[in-house]
């Protein structure tokens, strides 16, 4: 057990975003959170990473503080590609791993301005930014958005490689991709968990 949520509720100024959340995140496994737009996926992910605190309920985590997370709309800092990639290094003040940066073939973009890149290229930079830290837990909010098929395939292959060494919590829309990497699935609707189960059982129960 790595993160445990019991009867968690989260609301902002009288609006309830998450309700009756009970779940366990297992260490070393890949958990996929799915659901329609506005179902509360991003909020749940933020809560799991301790970016926000629950309004009520029990929250336990073996992590003492948040880890660098890929948000749904990652932040662009200024205009230089290099600056955006290395922003994390500046804050954390230790060396970063350029593996993902090179794998995504981003070296050629190093000297360009962020504004001149396509959405897909920007997204690859944001992903490499998070992955450059070799952390054991990955919190990823729709990492495949804006990516072309080739880049998406590359992303999935790279994530599959990391699966055994890391705990991954990821939100996705695409069920086919989810099946490729997920061990445990959670389906959210209107802020509540409609269904959660491991791979074998989830897709038996779930009609989509």
């Amino acid at each position: 057990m790595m993160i445990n949520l019991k009867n968690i509720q989260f609301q902002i100024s009288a609006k309830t975003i998450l309700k009756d959340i009970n779940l366990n995140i297992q260490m070393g496994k890949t958990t996929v959170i799915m659901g329609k737009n506005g179902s509360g996926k991003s909020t749940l992910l933020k809560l799991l990473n301790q970016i926000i605190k629950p309004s009520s309920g029990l929250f336990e985590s073996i992590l003492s503080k948040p880890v660098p997370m890929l948000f749904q709309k990652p932040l662009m800092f200024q205009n230089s590609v290099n600056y955006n990639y290395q922003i994390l290094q500046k804050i954390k003040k230790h060396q970063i791993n350029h593996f993902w940066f090179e794998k995504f073939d981003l070296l050629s973009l190093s000297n360009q301005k962020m504004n001149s890149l396509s959405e897909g290229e920007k997204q690859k930079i944001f992903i490499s930014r998070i992955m450059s830290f070799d952390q054991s837990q990955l919190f990823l909010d729709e990492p495949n958005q804006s990516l072309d098929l080739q880049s998406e395939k590359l992303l999935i292959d790279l994530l599959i490689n990391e699966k055994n060494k890391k705990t991954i919590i990821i939100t996705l829309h695409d069920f086919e991709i989810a099946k490729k990497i997920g061990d445990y699935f959670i389906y959210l609707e209107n802020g509540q968990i409609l269904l959660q189960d491991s791979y074998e059982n989830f897709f038996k129960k779930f009609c989509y």
Partner: protein
Amino acid sequence: MLNTPKVLEAIGISLHVSFVSTLFAFFLSIFFGYLIATRKFFLKKYIVSFLGSLTSIPPVCAGLIVYLIISRSGPLGWMELLYTPLAMIIAQFIIIFPIMITLIINYIEREYPQLKDELISYGASQKDILFLLITNQKGIYLTTLLIGFGRAISEYGAAAIVGGSIDHVTRNMTAMIALETAKGNILIGVILGAILISISLIISFGINYFKNDD
């Protein structure tokens, strides 16, 4: 026909007064704008609304308010600020500060929540967050400076009332335009007006040039 030394003097006074008032308002806008935008506190909505309403204060009113305070018969009369450039700076500050702080507050309220979340996940300290907030989007700050400065240098009424349009001392460009027009020298008023707009244009181009060079 155009008295060049006098015109240069007026330009110098305008630039001096408006630069200082703009810079002063700028730093206070960032300081208080950050505090107001990132914290919740009692009366926050009212203070923000009040600042917003002050953006449309007529220059003459701002001038009158300052005049009443620094006049001999007012509470700060003993400071002998009336008819000095410092009085003009204060009057212009009152006009542009609400505009600038409202812009800053809007920007921070828009950008800060997401910036904060993401940077907290990176383990950034409050200091890091503040630093990045300030250095991140230079564009908004330059725009705020430009809008504040534009309003300050072109206003007539505030600086005129508390400055007295005194030759060599407090007769800035707008006061000179008013005086020359009062003498019937309409053409000179137009020329001075064109010079004023040109100065604003130069500064505007300069700022936009540096903005896009980011």
